[in-house]
């Protein structure tokens, strides 16, 4: 079933078209971030800048406290991802390995919560947070996602295939339940946990919706909000600055993607 030469050439050509459709917009974004505004307006179709001008980046760092926003964003995303794993391990263990009255109900609750997105809960949660004065705090950004229905489900699925004898042996050796969960089982689930961490981290690093509705001031503003503000403030849109902000925002995730591509792809295609 070898492909004929002409067919292979057609395949190559189509692959190049696909690559162009997804890479050219990025490339253009990067090139535009090195232009000046008069140049963009005068020659919108010229790809290359007349001379490389880092002014837009200087402007981004002058208008936005980039380091602080980045710090807040990375801290928030990492805290969420780590808490999700820390809580999903014992919960998944109880659901997968322990027999007790009410297990079906508990598992059903977790599955039901899989169906509820943050977009359907933000109005009541915002009202609750406003009442207890935690709007504009890290708590409002992290706490609602500290437990993950999906994470609990995936850990449970992964633990089902671990033989009971393993856990019984650990119990014989005198290991406590928490030791079994975090010291014996967690290392065995490493691929699942790494995927879980990456997917969660990338999702919350990128998230625009939740930080937008849970913050009203600069106190815990995240980088996606800051970059979106680059377009909203000031008179007229200064596209070179917006594109420079875009590059600053995207570079960390694209780097992470380049390093951990296999894990991310496996997690997304649900082949854990």
């Amino acid at each position, binding site marked *: *079933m070898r492909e004929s030469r002409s067919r292979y050439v057609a*395949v190559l050509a*189509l*692959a190049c078209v*696909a*690559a162009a459709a997804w890479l050219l*917009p*990025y490339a253009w*974004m990067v090139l535009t971030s090195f232009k000046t505004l008069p140049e963009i307006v005068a*020659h*919108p*179709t010229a790809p290359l800048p007349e001379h490389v001008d880092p002014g837009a980046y200087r402007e981004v760092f002058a208008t936005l406290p980039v380091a602080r926003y980045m710090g807040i964003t990375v801290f928030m995303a990492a805290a969420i991802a780590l808490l999700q794993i820390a*809580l*999903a391990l*014992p*919960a998944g*263990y*109880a659901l997968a390995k*322990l027999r*007790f009255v*009410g297990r079906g109900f508990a598992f059903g*609750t*977790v599955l*039901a*919560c*899989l*169906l*509820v*997105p943050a*977009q359907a809960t933000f*109005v*009541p949660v915002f*009202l609750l947070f406003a009442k207890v004065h935690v709007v504009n705090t890290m708590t409002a950004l992290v706490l*609602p996602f500290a*437990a993950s229905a999906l994470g609990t489900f995936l850990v449970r699925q992964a633990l089902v295939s671990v033989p*009971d004898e393993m*856990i019984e042996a650990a119990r014989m050796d005198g290991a406590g339940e928490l030791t079994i*969960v975090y010291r014996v089982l967690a290392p065995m689930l490493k691929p699942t946990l790494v995927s879980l961490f990456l997917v969660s981290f*990338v999702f919350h*690093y990128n*998230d*625009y*919706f939740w930080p937008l*509705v849970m913050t009203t001031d600069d106190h815990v503003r995240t980088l996606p909000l800051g*970059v*979106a503000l680059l*377009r909203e403030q000031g008179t007229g849109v200064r*596209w070179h600055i*917006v*594109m420079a902000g*875009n590059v600053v*925002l*995207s570079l960390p*995730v*694209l780097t992470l993607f380049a390093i951990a*591509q296999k894990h991310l*792809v496996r997690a*997304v*295609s649900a*082949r854990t």
Partner: protein
Amino acid sequence: MRPRSTWHPWAMLGPTLALLAVFFALPIGVAAYESLFSWDMLTPPRYVGTANYEALAAHGELLRIALRTLGYSVLVVAGTMTLGLGLALLLDRPGRLFAFVRASVFSAYVVSWVAVALLWMWILDGNAGPIAGFMRSLGLAPVSFLGDPGWALPTLAVVGVWKLTGYAMIVFLAGLQGVPRSLLEAAALDGAGPWARFRHVTLPLLAPTASFVATTSLVTSFQAFDVVRIMTQGGPARATELFVYAIYEQIFLNLSVGRASALTVVFFVLLLAVAGLQLRVWRARAGVSR
């Protein structure tokens, strides 16, 4: 296995169940309760019964929001599935070049909606954007993609397709690994051409994958918000006011907690219908692979 002590399972599940209850299960009930009141967060709430729902349904506004959201979702799902399947078939080949193209397409799924929305706003910009520039240099009048009520929603859908095609492609690629080479070779020996092999061997075997992609993408695009908030703010003339943006507008711009809650309840019921479908497909899939 028997727990060592009867309270162990509940201690282990406690934090997870408590957080899920407070932030995912109970809010729906609270929204249903709040939807019966008129409240602007400043003056005391006033019980109004179903008046919030009636006000939203009046003049067909609620129906229009639902249909608009559905229209956007159908466009995105149809686009991502067609392109995703096409790209999966095209790029399911060994070699670094194909791996690179796969990664390029998937990378859009990994970056923030903020970056994607801002990037496309500039590409589509009527004054400084390259598309308008090309159209002018060809002597055509530039189309105001985001400013024309007829164009705005399909344009957002195109951006959604660009962002999400990588997801569909990756899942289809995983699905293609389940199509046995030997079956395709046997079909080829029997004289089946590429189209016949695709139509009668690959496609039927990909059906579960396709329904998985369809339902997950449908749920995702039903929740679209970022792209609307950044690119159009629901405009022009409400042409891109999707469900979640309408809720956001009610609570943060109109300060109407009751209306926002009523919209949340309707949104959740619609989502439940779609997501119930998703869970069934997902369970069937998990059952097959384990």
